[in-house]
């Protein structure tokens, strides 16, 4: 709860696929992220997911678009702070068999009790039960 007693929205953990769309200058995804941020939705970006997006799109423009995420007011990055978190990430990789960047997203979502914002709900649903607590997914789509 916030100091004034209002409920604070739970952060959404942004996965690598969403960040790849940002790196590719996807207009709709970038605008959605910007609008969510402007409306007070906290977003958390695991740094290894940024690495995955940067690997997908190796241009200066892509790098700067990804850096631009850090400049949004309600968005923050989640790093690997210390050895304990690094070891925990290894545990998540071992249990899920996910790539390190996806495992970092899962680890942050699991530790922070937050849903994962993704373009690929099916991929995450396959891993929703891999950890002690279920992973919850919010899939980006245009229902038309």
């Amino acid at each position, binding site marked *: *709860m916030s100091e004034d007693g209002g409920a604070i929205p739970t952060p959404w953990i942004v996965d690598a696929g969403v960040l790849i769309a940002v790196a590719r200058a996807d*207009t709709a995804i*970038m605008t959605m992220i910007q609008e969510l941020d402007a409306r007070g939705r906290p977003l958390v970006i695991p740094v290894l997911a940024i690495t995955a997006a940067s690997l997908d799109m190796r241009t200066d423009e892509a790098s700067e678009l990804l850096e*631009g995420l850090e400049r949004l007011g309600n968005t923050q990055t989640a790093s690997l702070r210390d050895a304990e978190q690094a070891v925990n990430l290894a545990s998540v990789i071992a249990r899920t068999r996910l790539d390190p960047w996806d495992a970092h997203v899962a680890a942050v979502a699991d530790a922070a*009790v*937050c849903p994962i914002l993704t373009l690929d709900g099916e991929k995450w649903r396959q891993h929703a039960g891999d950890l002690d607590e279920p992973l919850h997914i919010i*899939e980006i789509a*245009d229902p038309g």
Partner: protein
Amino acid sequence: MSERKTRLTVTIDPHLAAYAERLVEAGKASSVSAVVNDALSERIERDRRIAKRWKEITSQADMARVERMIAHAEAQAAQLPVQYRFR
């Protein structure tokens, strides 16, 4: 810039301080303060360039579509257990 400078006390990593001092010794900067001033100016320029590019891209969005996508996401969030919705 012609305006008066502001005195500022900062703490920086030793290797960055050493690099700035080497630039001064090599005659590539007039002072360590000038190096820091230039670095901050470049940071401002970079931030502005990034903000401008984001604005250029997002200004082209189909807002009706984006609103549908946000509503779709919020509807899914509303179905989550309460601990996944609010702090």
